[in-house]
């Protein structure tokens, strides 16, 4: 048999040589809503922006360090109000025009144009006043903001530089060549892409990227198994395990993702709940006791089939810099939980826990309906809490009414939701931690902090935002994480792993926790046979 196969192999090698670079294929959930990199607000548009946009600096998804791209170097000055970029020279746009400081200034001005309402621009808005972008020469540009922005330089990871002269020209590795709404998107390699590999060859290795619009995840999996597509982002643990059993080489567990599952109690003062329940929810001992009744290992083992780990705080260990390595998840300790509750005046009456006034301890947990993972977590919580005498009622709600309850009417007792972290920097979570913030979920929009510990969190969050010194910022945010661990306004449950399917035919893939997890280094991804053919 091997003998007859030989000519075939030779033929395929020949074809591989002929197919210069090859085509990477994967699926988008929906059509991109925009091709304007400054207007991006949805995942699909973000993917297109990542594949086509050139940026001044890039956060390396693996090391989470900031690396130079179109800017050779940069300098933050004036206490974080000003940044000066020195740009790479001899870079051409996809259609041949040269890249210069003028283009950067143009991009920044357009991004900050209030009329455009750019979501990207929003993260740069620090205070009232104008943003001034000035060229200091053909390859130097300075940007001045009205007030300091912590972590300013990292924000430029999201800013794809436009061309001041040609609206369609891009600086990224690929160019949109074809878009058939509802069907697919074809990106071709940018022939003028500036990056080169170690041997001096111009990147990207791939000829094209084809993005198929495919909402149905089952079909996506079938197509992957057939080899029609090469990547699937974020598989659920069940699918991952069945894929791992069939094709171990293509099932990739990239370790903890940045996402966190958590629950919290409603501590809003005027929430339409009985006073005695509000008193439980405001009691630190009660919150800690509930937290310690939860078997987080079981959640990771049963719900995520081992592809997760107990969560400790707002950041997962995959956030290398900001994760507080000194903290451990609240331990599973029903006996300790019972002791804590007894000290607080709760007592066990048969199988029912009662508070000081004799009310049976029972509360509801709202979560979004149709999410299998959360339903299972809720089931485990229900059983765990039953063991300390607490009755948990699970209330799955459709998303809009859930949001209505947790953000407007506050007619809920406890909530189970996930936190999807896109940004590594705690500055992105100012609106969660400040007691006056709208997303301070357990008790939002407080005129003044309701508790001393919330006041302290406020102080530390402001402190970390007001300095540029990473060490000081880290120390401040570590304090925040410690207070949150101690007071347990959020009960962090699990950090799921990032599970992906990656075709073994691909080379140089390096899945990471940060988005876009599987193709962040797309310009270096290639097909195994093609690389060997080129050598």
């Amino acid at each position, binding site marked *: 048999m091997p003998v007859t196969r030989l000519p075939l192999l030779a033929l395929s090698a020949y074809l591989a040589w002929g197919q210069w670079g090859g085509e990477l294929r994967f699926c988008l959930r929906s059509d991109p809503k925009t091709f304007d990199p400054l207007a991006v607000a949805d995942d699909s548009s973000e993917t297109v922006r990542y594949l086509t946009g050139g940026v001044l600096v890039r956060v390396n998804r693996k090391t989470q360090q900031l690396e130079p791209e179109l800017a050779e170097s940069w300098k933050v000055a004036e206490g974080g109000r000003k940044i000066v970029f020195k740009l790479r020279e001899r870079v051409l746009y996809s259609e041949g025009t040269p890249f210069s400081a003028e283009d950067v200034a143009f991009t920044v001005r357009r991004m900050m144009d209030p009329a455009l309402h750019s979501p990207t621009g929003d993260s740069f808005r620090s205070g009232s006043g104008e943003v001034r972008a000035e060229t200091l020469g053909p390859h130097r540009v300075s940007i001045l903001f009205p007030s300091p922005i912590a972590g300013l330089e990292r924000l430029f990871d999201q800013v794809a530089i436009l061309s001041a002269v040609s609206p369609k020209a891009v600086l990224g590795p690929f160019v949109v060549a074809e878009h058939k709404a509802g069907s697919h998107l074809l990106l071709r390699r940018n022939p003028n892409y500036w990056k080169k590999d170690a041997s001096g060859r111009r990147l990207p290795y791939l000829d094209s990227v084809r993005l198929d619009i495919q909402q149905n995840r089952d079909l996506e999996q079938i197509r992957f198994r057939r080899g029609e597509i090469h990547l699937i982002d974020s598989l659920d643990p069940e699918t991952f395990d*069945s894929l791992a059993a069939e094709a171990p080489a293509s099932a990739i567990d990239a370790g903890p993702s940045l996402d966190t599952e958590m629950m919290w109690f409603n501590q809003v003062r005027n929430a339409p709940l009985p006073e005695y329940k509000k008193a439980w929810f405001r009691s630190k001992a009660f919150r800690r006791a509930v937290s310690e009744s939860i078997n987080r290992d079981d959640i990771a083992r*049963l719900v995520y089939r081992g592809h997760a780990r107990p969560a400790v705080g707002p950041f997962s260990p995959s956030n290398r810099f900001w994760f507080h390595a000194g903290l451990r998840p609240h331990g599973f300790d029903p006996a300790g939980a019972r002791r804590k509750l007894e000290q607080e005046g709760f007592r066990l009456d048969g199988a029912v826990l009662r508070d000081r006034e004799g009310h049976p301890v029972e509360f509801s947990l709202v979560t979004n*309906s149709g999410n299998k993972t959360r339903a299972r977590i809720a089931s485990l919580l229900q059983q765990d809490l039953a063991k300390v005498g607490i009755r948990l*009622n699970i209330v799955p709600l*459709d998303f809009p009414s859930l949001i209505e309850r947790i953000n407007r009417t506050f007619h809920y007792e406890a909530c189970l939701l996930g936190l999807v972290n896109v940004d590594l920097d705690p500055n992105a979570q100012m609106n969660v931690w400040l007691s006056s913030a709208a997303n301070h979920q357990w008790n939002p929009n407080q005129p003044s902090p309701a508790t001393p510990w919330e006041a302290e969190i406020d102080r530390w969050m402001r402190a970390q935002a007001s300095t540029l010194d990473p060490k000081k910022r880290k120390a401040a945010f570590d304090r925040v994480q410690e207070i949150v661990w101690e007071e347990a306004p959020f009960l962090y449950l699990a950090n799921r792993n990032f599970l992906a399917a990656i075709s073994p035919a691909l080379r140089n893939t390096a899945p990471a926790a940060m988005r876009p997890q599987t193709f962040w280094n797309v310009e270096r991804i290639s097909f195994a046979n093609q690389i060997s053919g080129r050598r």
Partner: protein
Amino acid sequence: MQTLRYLAAAFLLMVFLASVGADFLSPAPYERQFRDHPNEPPSRRFPLGTDELGRDRLSRLLHGSRVSLLLAPAAALLAVFLAALVGLSAGFLGGWFERAAMACTDLFVSLPWLFLLLTVRALLPLNVAPWTSVSITFLLLGLLGWASSARVIRAGAAAVRGSDFALQARAAGCRTARLMMVHLLPNLRPAIAAQFWISIPVFIWSEANLGMLGLGVTEPLPSWGNLLLELANYRAVFAAPWLLAPAVLLVLVSSGFHFIFSKEDPCR
């Protein structure tokens, strides 16, 4: 054919008894999580294996049957009662009343009930016991599921209205109400019975579909709906065919109802 009907009836009776006696027949409490035995294949201890949280599947199937088989007929009864009320009066009284009732029925069929169900679910108090919640769900299904049956019954009633015997009865001085009760109802009984039997599997399926949306039965109570949910992962089913047990049971019960329905003598 007759034997088949008896078999179907016997089977349904058996399933019914098994679901009523679920507490005694179940090897384990349906909500008990044997966390050290998740996703187990069938064994002597777990005849249908365990689910991902280590709960005994047979026990869950039995209790799920109880929920679905007790509440679906109840909902069907309610729906058919409403359908008969609307269909009979519309078809028999005719005129503007019929037009109004049928417009109402059409509206009912075309309204986005899913959103209404979502809203109602959202309006319920937070701390609702699972049994209450599932009963309310079926109550809603019953309250909302009458429209298509009402159309069928109305057609039958309209036919009776135009019939000679209805005319004859009127000519004999029969009162309208009496006419409907005595003359109309017996004639439509087969149609109404058919609607009832047909509604039961429809409601079982509806609850199953609501279950897929996270509505309907809440944890930890099982129903055929949330048991069927696990079949969504079709690959898992190939590897573990015993997961199909609830689906098989649902299909068997549905066809059982159909067999029994076809037993109805259209003359009575």
